[in-house]
């Protein structure tokens, strides 16, 4: 047994991190946010005339400076130390990334703010097709496809590492659906075709996807809490409900196997596992960001990170993160349904509570639109609804106790 990452796995993770920091660094994230937010809402609310300008103004407070590129460039001892020497990302975003975003936006031919009143907020084309193709070229979507089929031929552990990195930078788009469609939907593997799928009562990125899997009839747009995840709600479906074999008590109801909400079909398991990986990456980033801020922000004449009240918030963030990490990585090795359910519960918790605590550590700056913390929290909230959500995971794990495999 050796649970540690292999050298190849470390290299792969670093490669994905470099790619994403380069192609989707903080400026690209804020540019995507501006497009999604519609007619210059960011500039208006932040009062800074754009994300970069806003950052400059507030950097002196230590609030904005702790986020985004600042956090990526500084080797944060937290994650690195806990994981045995993880190198910090090399910040190569900026001009290149911003240019790519601008190109991508132009290529889709849909300027921001062009949406109708009834569409999702903003309504502009947010998805960066050029970035999407770059991900395809790098093998992001074809990671698990056999090499004979033009894929990378890697396994679930490597895929989980890649999706963790995507979660770190809040990479937008129906990444999991497209990844799962590689090999079956032509063009998905290369990033030419964007694929989304109905998931329970929701579907992400319906208007921007080229291929939609599952029944999305009657889909209604909602104003998504996460500005970078357009959502439609789906009408409730009639479907057979079956009962698990009773083990002596009152049976409770489960959706039919293979039905739209059964988390135990292979794809549902994978959606849950890769969602957990994204949550893990988000939790890692918010933990590092909080620590960085606590080290540099001074009040009462000392860094706020010297106060135990703040220290303990950060320590709990790391404890949740590393516990979730062990569970997620193990589930990627075993692909056992109960392991996946456990990984998902802990990763959801690490991401949501991590973002909440990160916001708290940032104080007033954490409550601003200009900070990235809210984007992590809103995305984390959104992800918790995928593949049945926490309730279903808890019920499965409860049943598992009676099955005696625990």
């Amino acid at each position, binding site marked *: 047994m050796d649970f540690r990452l292999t050298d190849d796995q470390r290299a792969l993770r670093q490669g994905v991190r470099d790619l994403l920091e380069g192609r989707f660094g903080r400026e690209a994230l804020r540019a995507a946010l501006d497009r999604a937010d519609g007619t210059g809402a960011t500039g208006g609310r932040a009062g800074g005339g754009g994300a970069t300008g806003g950052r400059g103004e507030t950097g002196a407070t230590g609030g904005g400076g702790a986020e985004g590129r600042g956090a990526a460039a500084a080797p944060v001892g937290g994650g690195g130390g806990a994981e045995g020497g993880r190198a910090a990302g090399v910040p190569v975003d900026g001009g290149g990334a911003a240019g790519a975003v601008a190109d991508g936006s132009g290529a889709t031919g849909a300027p921001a703010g062009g949406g109708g009143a009834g569409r999702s907020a903003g309504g502009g084309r947010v998805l960066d097709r050029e970035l999407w193709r770059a991900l395809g070229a790098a093998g992001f979507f074809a990671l698990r496809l056999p090499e004979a089929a033009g894929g990378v031929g890697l396994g679930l552990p490597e895929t989980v590492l890649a999706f963790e990195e995507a979660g770190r930078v809040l990479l937008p788009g129906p990444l999991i659906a497209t990844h799962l469609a590689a090999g079956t939907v032509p063009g998905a593997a290369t990033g030419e075709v964007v694929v989304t799928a109905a998931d329970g009562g929701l579907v992400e990125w319906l208007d921007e996807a080229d291929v939609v899997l599952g029944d999305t009839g009657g889909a209604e747009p909602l104003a998504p809490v996460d500005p970078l995840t357009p959502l439609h709600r789906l009408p409730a479906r009639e479907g057979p409900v079956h009962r698990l074999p009773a083990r002596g008590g009152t049976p409770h109801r489960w959706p039919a196997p293979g039905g739209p909400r059964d988390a135990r079909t292979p794809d549902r398991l994978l959606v849950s596992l890769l969602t957990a990986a994204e949550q893990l990456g988000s939790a890692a980033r918010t933990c590092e960001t909080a620590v960085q801020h606590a080290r540099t922000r001074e009040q009462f004449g000392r860094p706020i*990170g*010297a106060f*135990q009240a703040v220290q303990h918030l950060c320590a709990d963030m790391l*404890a949740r993160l590393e516990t979730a990490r062990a569970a997620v990585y193990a589930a990627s090795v075993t692909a056992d349904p109960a392991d996946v*359910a456990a990984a998902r519960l802990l990763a959801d918790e690490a991401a949501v509570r991590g973002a909440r605590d990160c916001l708290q550590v940032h104080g007033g700056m954490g409550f601003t639109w200009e900070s990235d913390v809210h984007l992590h929290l809103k995305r984390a909230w959104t992800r918790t609804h995928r593949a049945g959500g926490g309730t279903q*995971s808890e019920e499965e794990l409860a049943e598992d106790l009676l099955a005696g495999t625990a």
Partner: protein
Amino acid sequence: MDLGLTVEEEEFRARLRTWLAGVLPTLPPKPSPHDWPARRAYDLGWQRRLYDAGYAGLHWPVDAGGRGATPTQHLLFLEETEKAGAPYVGANFVGLLHAGPTIASEGSAEQRARWLPPVLRGEEVWCQGFSEPDAGSDLAALRTRARRDGDDYVVSGSKIWTSHAEVADWCELLVRTDPDARRHAGITWLAMPMDAPGITVRPLRTLAGSTEFAEVFLDEVRVPAANRVGAENDGWRVTMVTLSYERGTAFVGEVVACRRVLSEVAREARRNGRWDDAVLRRRLGRLNAEFRALWRLTQWNVSEAQGTGGVPGTGGSVFKLRYSHARQELFDAAAEVLGPESLDLGREWTLDRLSSLSYTIAAGTSQIQRNIVAERILGLPRGR
């Protein structure tokens, strides 16, 4: 990320299982928890069987009489012995996990030859004299004095939370030899014979009603200077060396046991109807996730230790923070399943619920663990 076992590890486990299946039925009945001499005899008897079968000091270095097993083999040993229902380390705890490894690492050849074999063979019991009434979380504040007098140190002071003091042969003792030095600097490590004149042991009763540990009062106790391990005033460093021997495996057996208890709690809920309460049921499901993750975290920590030659990573503090809390949650949930029955001390889980309260305090409180995580792992400024 390899969670599988190598051929050697599989063979190790198979041999161990075969041996356990043969030896456990030959054990005498478990002694009463209140009969300390009987508990000592029982625990030493188990250690002797381990010794005869080649499992004593599994994780000790070979040149200290150990087996030089890998951290993974040690993990398998702890997992399998717990699953088979074998006795706990019990009275051998300090000898095998603290004092012994310290002597193995820092002791002279004579000291190793004198003290290590009796620990491995199950002949001598050690206790730990570290904490004091005014030196708990702040261990370096200890005040028990030792002054040199000829070939002896003369020790006066008091120690507390000393497990197995009533039946121990030796005490690994931390004393202050230089009252003028900075806190960590003036401390010395001594092996004190527990039959020396001037030692008074007063058992402490815990809130669970049992006497698991004691206060030890020292009044002009003479300890030969030859019993000093390491240099005078270097005891703090000598003590810290010990910690590297646990390799983050101190709670392996307990996590295995907690997972078994959790399944029993679920079955009890199914039996008494509480299973129909969705809130309770989901709470048990979440605990399943927690203990599964803690098991994976243990495997992670052990794998990290494998890479560093046995020195545990900082994962130990993260694990302890999370585990001590989860253990309390487990027995709180068990109490909810039991309902009014949870007020009956005759129920095993009721006593376990009480004893679980010590977990967020012993071996570094949760608050101290958070300080360690914040300052040593996350690199936050030292706080006050």
